[in-house]
């Protein structure tokens, strides 16, 4: 993330940021940079002709200020961003952002850090971008997550409320995530629910894919606005298609080739994980195309089903992770809906078979097929 708040000369830094110089210093050729721009236009589903426009936009960029708030999280999203193997172009693009406040990596501490944040909010009101990582607890006035003596919800209201836009990174910040899983002891919610007045863009995933954050930033720098979103506030370029519909194992699904047990021949051959409870058919994310860790791999590629981590309340709704269907409330955990249903159908058949036997023995039922004046008024 390069220079954040390592000294007090933030304003000076902003004016002197020169992308070309940065690229040269880090040994990134112009050709690599253009390749990155093409990849970004592809990620954003823009025509290839946009690549030079992206390059131009990035060249002329003025550093937007970024405030990164971290609440109830495992820091997995920060990790996903910071663990890039070598200085990639994407990393440098993220350096364009002047990350003036970020709990995990900022040099400033204590009151100094809090002062920095207060200064940004005051001086750049409506211009800076807020990033939220982790869920926000609301129960008992939000006391379960406090930073510098203030509750998470209080900080989020102030920071996100005054921001140009808020990017919720990861499922916790987007929809409450794991801290919000039943019974949700802290009353954790996502950013939009905690601060309804804020403009929030959700980038769920556990963790988020840093490429999607980069693409969102590029979109913002290029068009000066946030990308189009779906009904769950997620950008369509990254969450517009189901994992199942772009999955590299999809041909095996359509053909009828399934892994039956872990480690069987089908599993070794890379067949479809549908029967192992893969939640690709429930989940909207671009994992199959974008992949994780510099596009190295993603869960399904490594032989494990999708857990549905980018869907709201996935921990409650997608479990059990290794079964197709959720458990039926009120029945034992080993009972699936279809086992219960089969029992129900068999039971119904047995009941009516019994009824038939009794009916057959009641040969002399009265008035069948005859008109009954006492019953029929018609």
């Amino acid at each position, binding site marked *: 993330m390069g220079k954040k708040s390592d000294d007090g000369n933030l304003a000076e830094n902003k004016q002197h940021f020169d992308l070309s110089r940065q690229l040269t210093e880090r040994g990134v050729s112009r050709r690599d940079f253009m390749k990155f721009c093409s990849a970004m236009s592809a990620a954003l589903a823009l025509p290839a002709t946009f690549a030079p426009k992206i390059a131009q936009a990035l060249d002329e960029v003025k550093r937007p200020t970024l405030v990164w708030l971290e609440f109830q999280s495992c820091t997995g999203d920060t990790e996903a961003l910071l663990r890039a193997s070598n200085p990639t172009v994407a990393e440098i693009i993220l350096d364009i952002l002047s990350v003036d406040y970020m709990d995990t990596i900022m040099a400033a501490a204590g009151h100094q850090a809090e002062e920095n944040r207060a200064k940004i909010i005051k001086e750049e009101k409506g211009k800076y971008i807020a990033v939220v990582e982790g869920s926000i607890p609301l129960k008992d006035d939000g006391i379960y997550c406090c930073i510098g003596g203030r509750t998470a919800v209080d900080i989020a209201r102030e920071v996100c409320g005054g921001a140009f836009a808020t990017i919720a990174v990861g499922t916790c910040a987007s929809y409450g995530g794991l801290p919000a899983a039943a019974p949700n002891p802290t009353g954790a919610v996502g950013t939009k629910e905690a601060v309804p007045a804020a403009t929030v863009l959700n980038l769920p995933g556990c963790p988020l894919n840093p490429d999607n954050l980069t693409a969102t930033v590029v979109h913002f720098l290029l068009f000066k606005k946030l990308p189009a979103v779906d*009904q*769950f506030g997620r950008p*369509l370029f990254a969450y*517009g*298609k*189901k994992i199942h*519909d772009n999955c590299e194992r999809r*041909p*095996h*699904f*359509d*053909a*009828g*080739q*399934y892994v*039956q047990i872990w480690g069987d021949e*089908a599993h070794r051959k890379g*067949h479809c994980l*549908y*029967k192992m409870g893969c*939640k690709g*058919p*429930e989940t*909207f994310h671009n994992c199959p195309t974008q992949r994780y860790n510099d596009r190295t791999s993603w869960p399904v590629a490594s032989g494990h089903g999708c857990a549905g981590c980018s*869907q*709201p*309340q996935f921990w409650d*709704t*997608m479990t059990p992770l290794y079964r*197709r*269907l*959720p458990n*039926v409330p009120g029945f034992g955990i080993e009972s699936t*809906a*279809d086992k*219960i*249903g*089969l029992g*129900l*159908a068999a039971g*119904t*058949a047995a009941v*009516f078979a019994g*009824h*038939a036997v*009794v*009916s057959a023995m*009641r040969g*002399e*039922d*009265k*008035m*069948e*097929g*005859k*008109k*009954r004046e006492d*019953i*029929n008024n*018609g």
Partner: protein
Amino acid sequence: MSKLKILYVWEIPVRVTHWVNVLAIVTLCITGIFIGHPLSIGKSASGFTMGWIRFLHFTAAYVFAIGLAVRAYWSFVGNKYSNWRAFFPFLTADGRKKAAATFKYYTFIDRDLPHTVGHNAVASTAYFLVFLLYLGMIVTGFTLYSEHAPGGVMHKMLGWITHIFSNQTLRLIHHSFMWLIIGFVINHIYSCWLMDIKERGGIMSSMFSGYKSMEED
């Protein structure tokens, strides 16, 4: 003894939609169970076994939905036996009396079977409840189906449902309702068979011919 008459009870749209529903429901259940618990019958990755089975399922779903829509329309323009009022016997005192009598007959409490030309009061109430199951199946099914084209017309119409229920809950409902419908089918075939024997009005053949030999209402 009053005279038997040959009564035209089930009009053509009622019979056609009934048998279309039968075919669609059988197809949907068989393909649906396979989709829920597929067998590894694909020989190569270029096969399309599951693809065709899903295609059958979706096509049958459209047929079923259209059949149900036609039948719903007919309940407003058809004869009195097919009218929507026939499905709410509990709204009239006479209907309640008949429902109670039919229920007593079914449960062997009473030997008297009330005279009915169209649906008996218990059956028609069951049909209304089953109609709700059908609606639930159509809504959950098409909501899940619509996700193949996010932002499409169907997804715009039904996507909001995934806000209230998660996909997995919709799937659970879709599976559970199928078993309830299968339970109904067992009940339905048995009851028609029983009534064919006990009423002697030819209820089984009436679903093919439309006619019943009964005293008039």
